[in-house]
């Protein structure tokens, strides 16, 4: 019995290896021959730590593919691989897209760490990649083949510092999550911008860090209360944010509390309840104030597609949609499926009207966006306050 079973398992392994090989031959034949399909790889975390965000982004990309299924008269096929929010897995997933599936371009990934890990492989293979929501500057830094559709943490930090100043804040306290590149990056850029704008080194009265999975912020907040800042900036995840907000209000801290794009999540309002009223956050996109024509059609179309699955359109879905359109647009202008040609076409993108604003690329390959949306919470809803333009 044992012997039979193990032989059987071996057989399965061997057979599946062979099926893998035959598949590969087919695809390589396709790439060389007269194929009528253009393959775009999508690598996203569909399971693991960032699975939720990855799926939202993927939905946006899939919807874009549904809306614009063709380029150069050929059908676009999305090849989707899961990177399990894990770096080792991410590098094999991307290599697989490039070597086995022979994709012409890659979109992804949610989470900067996996994108950075994939960066060198993409660079060496000369296949252009378009990140949707990876905001860490290191993703595109020194990598001419990696682009991204979102704005960066430095920009977002600057936007919030600007906004705080406009509201008359003279001093600020910053709370960051130790061990989280997003939170630490954004917090530091806010500090730099705020100091620069106020011209006062002492304008940041307190900088505190908390650990992952901390739930009690009373020590940090009591300390901040004693320093009495005009505003608190606390970039953090959607699970931590409501805890900070609730505990701050419970301690009697009255000043505005601000956060980054991760706060635009119904969970924040659900958990923080009435305390969430008046929090301020910046985000990529607002469905009530479409920035471009493309955005208007996207909002109505995607709302119908979601059919009430989610109360608001997730910003990452809009970014995924934009990333797809940018790649498709570049392939069209390049007129070929050659990696370098597409890369040059992406770099030459001029005033592209996406859902999240007008997009140009900087030399580093980052979207040179000039708008960010500021939102607040009123009566248990995210409400649009302002679209800020920073130059």
């Amino acid at each position, binding site marked *: *019995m*044992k*012997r039979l*079973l*193990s032989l059987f*398992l071996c057989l399965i*392994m061997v057979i*599946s*290896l062979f*099926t*893998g090989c035959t*598949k590969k031959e087919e695809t390589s034949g396709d790439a060389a021959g007269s194929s009528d399909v253009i393959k775009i790889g999508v690598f996203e975390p*569909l*399971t693991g730590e960032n*699975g939720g965000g990855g799926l939202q982004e993927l939905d946006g990309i899939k919807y874009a593919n549904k809306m614009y299924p063709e380029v150069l008269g050929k059908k676009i096929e999305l090849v*989707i*691989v*899961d990177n399990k929010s*894990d*770096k*080792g897995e991410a*590098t*094999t997933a991307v*290599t*697989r897209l*490039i*070597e*086995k599936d022979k994709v012409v371009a890659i979109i992804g990934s949610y989470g900067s*760490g996996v994108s*950075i*890990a994939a*960066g*060198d*492989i993409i660079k060496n*293979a000369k296949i252009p990649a378009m990140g949707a929501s990876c905001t*860490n*500057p*290191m993703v595109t*830094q*020194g990598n001419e083949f990696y682009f991204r559709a979102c704005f960066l943490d430095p920009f977002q930090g600057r936007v919030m510092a600007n906004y705080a100043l406009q509201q008359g804040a003279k001093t600020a306290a910053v709370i960051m999550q*130790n*061990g*989280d*590149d997003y*939170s*630490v*990056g954004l917090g*530091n850029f806010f500090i730099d911008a705020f100091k620069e704008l106020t011209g006062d080194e002492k304008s940041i009265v307190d900088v505190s860090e908390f*650990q992952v999975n901390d739930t009690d912020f009373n020590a940090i907040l009591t300390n901040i209360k004693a320093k009495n800042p005009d505003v608190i900036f606390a970039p953090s995840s959607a699970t931590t944010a409501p805890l900070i907000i609730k505990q701050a209000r419970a301690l009697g801290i009255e000043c505005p509390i601000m956060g980054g794009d991760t706060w635009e999540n119904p969970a924040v309002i659900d958990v923080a309840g009435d305390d969430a009223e008046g929090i301020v956050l910046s985000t990529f996109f607002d469905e009530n104030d479409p920035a471009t024509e493309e955005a208007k059609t996207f909002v109505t179309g995607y709302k119908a597609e979601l059919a009430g699955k989610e109360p608001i359109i997730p910003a990452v879905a809009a970014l995924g949609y934009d990333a797809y359109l940018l790649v498709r647009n570049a392939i069209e202008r390049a007129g070929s499926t050659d990696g370098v040609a597409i890369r040059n076409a992406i770099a030459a993108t001029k005033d592209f009207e996406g859902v999240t604003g007008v997009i140009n690329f900087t030399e580093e390959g980052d979207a040179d966006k000039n708008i960010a949306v500021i939102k607040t919470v009123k009566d248990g809803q995210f409400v649009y306050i302002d679209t800020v333009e920073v130059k």
Partner: protein
Amino acid sequence: MMKIEKKENNLLKNAVLILIFAAIIVLLDLDIIGDNYVRRVLNLAAIYAIVSVSMNLVNGFTGLFSLGQAGFMAIGAYTVAVFTVPVEARKAIFYIVPQSPLVANIELPFFVALILGGLLAALVAILIGMPVLRLKSDYLAIATLGFSEIIRIVFTNMKTITNGALGIKSIPQMPTMWVFFGAMIISVILIVLLINSSYGRAFKAIREDDIAAEAMGINLFKHKVLSFAIGAFFAGIGGGLLASLLGTVDPKQFYFTMTYNFLLIIVLGGMGSISGTVIASFVVTVGLEVLRFFDDSLVLFGYEVPIFRAGFRMVIFSILLMILVLFFRNGLMGQKELSWKMVGDFFNGKKSPKNNRKGGAA
């Protein structure tokens, strides 16, 4: 007479087998067969084999239930990352807090940094092992698990050296597979030699019964620390190779869950079997990639089968593991090593003698 002939025969078979494997790697390395994808998966499997064998030395051969492997790998990985990234690239990486002048201008060759990483891991293992190795079974597991988390948090907070949560990128890549496979072969040979030496016999004696071992005159403490430190050294080497293969490190990579990958491999391969561990490393790493087609959506007769979606391969993988653990209680190899006799018996249908020792899955 017969016996000698048979031995020579086996030697010949071994030589042929080794030549075949070497030839495959050479062909892969020269880009004659396979592609980057295959190479990357195999490199990853080789690294996993190094770390798993080192973990098996501690857990399977010395009987210390240690779960600190991720922490030791982090030490090796960060040593390679900090010392091999080109000096001119560092300013761009450390864009929030500049790198401490202590290490900012030191750039070491890859192999020096790799060995240094292993030695640092071993040193830390000795320091941590002295108090912790007085604990037994579950308590030791908890203490080492906690230790690997401490390492990770220390690295998160040493911002001027490790760049904290932002991680380090641009770690130089190795041009050939031989770096990974060479390291694997050397590590495995060294550990096999160690296990067959008098030290190795002492380790096994401690595993079977430490009171009896002590009564026989084995210095328990010395041998436990030795095994722990050597295990940590090779885990550090594995971590350094991983950093070079991925080209980037950050503290989140080294969560304690990473150790479970290696625990899975040694339980699957057989606690106390080196060849089993190496085989299991390759089966698990390659198997996970082979199963990827379960993640794609499958359309049968125009109907999309709903269970074929992202994450499904992990379900299949778990089911296969359960089958293996149910029918091979001691892992693929138990405490035995792969031999020609075993392969022959398997195909001739001879029952191998029942393994009565307790070993295997805990």
